[in-house]
């Protein structure tokens, strides 16, 4: 079964450093997402990406965050200057676009646990 792959599985970084979280979505999917889950809290939407541009972003996704699909297969989330409160599990997800089938189900990666110290 196709998978969404995320690397690294765990990253520790110092406050103020830049981090890049990487995701390889399922190859025939067209919508890509980043979500995060702070320990003990619910899964929160960060950003959606379609046709090489951001289609929607949440209030959390401020100027410190950016996303990119640099080479047609990877989908990255960059945090420019990390803060302690950025510590969370970050999930990448992808799905087929409507019209490709009735499956609106998202496929999630296994997540990257980011720890900012």
């Amino acid at each position: 079964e196709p998978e969404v792959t995320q690397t690294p599985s765990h990253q520790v970084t110092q406050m103020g450093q830049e981090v890049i979280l990487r995701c390889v979505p399922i190859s025939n999917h067209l919508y890509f997402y980043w979500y995060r889950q702070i320990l003990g809290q619910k899964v929160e939407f960060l950003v959606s990406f379609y046709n090489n541009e951001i289609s929607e972003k949440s209030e959390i996704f401020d100027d410190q965050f950016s996303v990119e699909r640099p080479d047609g297969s990877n989908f990255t989330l960059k945090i420019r200057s990390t803060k302690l409160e950025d510590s969370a599990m970050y999930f990448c997800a992808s799905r087929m676009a409507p019209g490709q089938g009735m499956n609106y189900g998202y496929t999630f990666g296994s997540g990257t646990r980011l720890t900012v110290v």
Partner: protein
Amino acid sequence: AQSVSQHNHHVILSEAASLELGCNYSYGGTVNLFWYVQYPGQHLQLLLKYFSGDPLVKGIKGFEAEFIKSKFSFNLRKPSVQWSDTAEYFCAVIKGKLIFGQGTELSVKP
């Protein structure tokens, strides 16, 4: 505010007990509903989904959920839980994007 609400934060059951986890949503119109499970240390996995048709949907691992439109609910059920069902369960709605409830932690005692 529009939201997805899960009533129980933490549920503790013994093996073989029956399970029902509540989920209510406040979005109008057509909704697509999901239940995801997150086992300890693992990623989110789809348990089941509802788009249309029979409001009683069956998912993996013996789980089912019932969509009751008049109650804006999509409760998850399993007749007899196992220790391996210990996980966090998330109800979710698609309204442009996937929106999650707060999650319910299920602990099953052997």
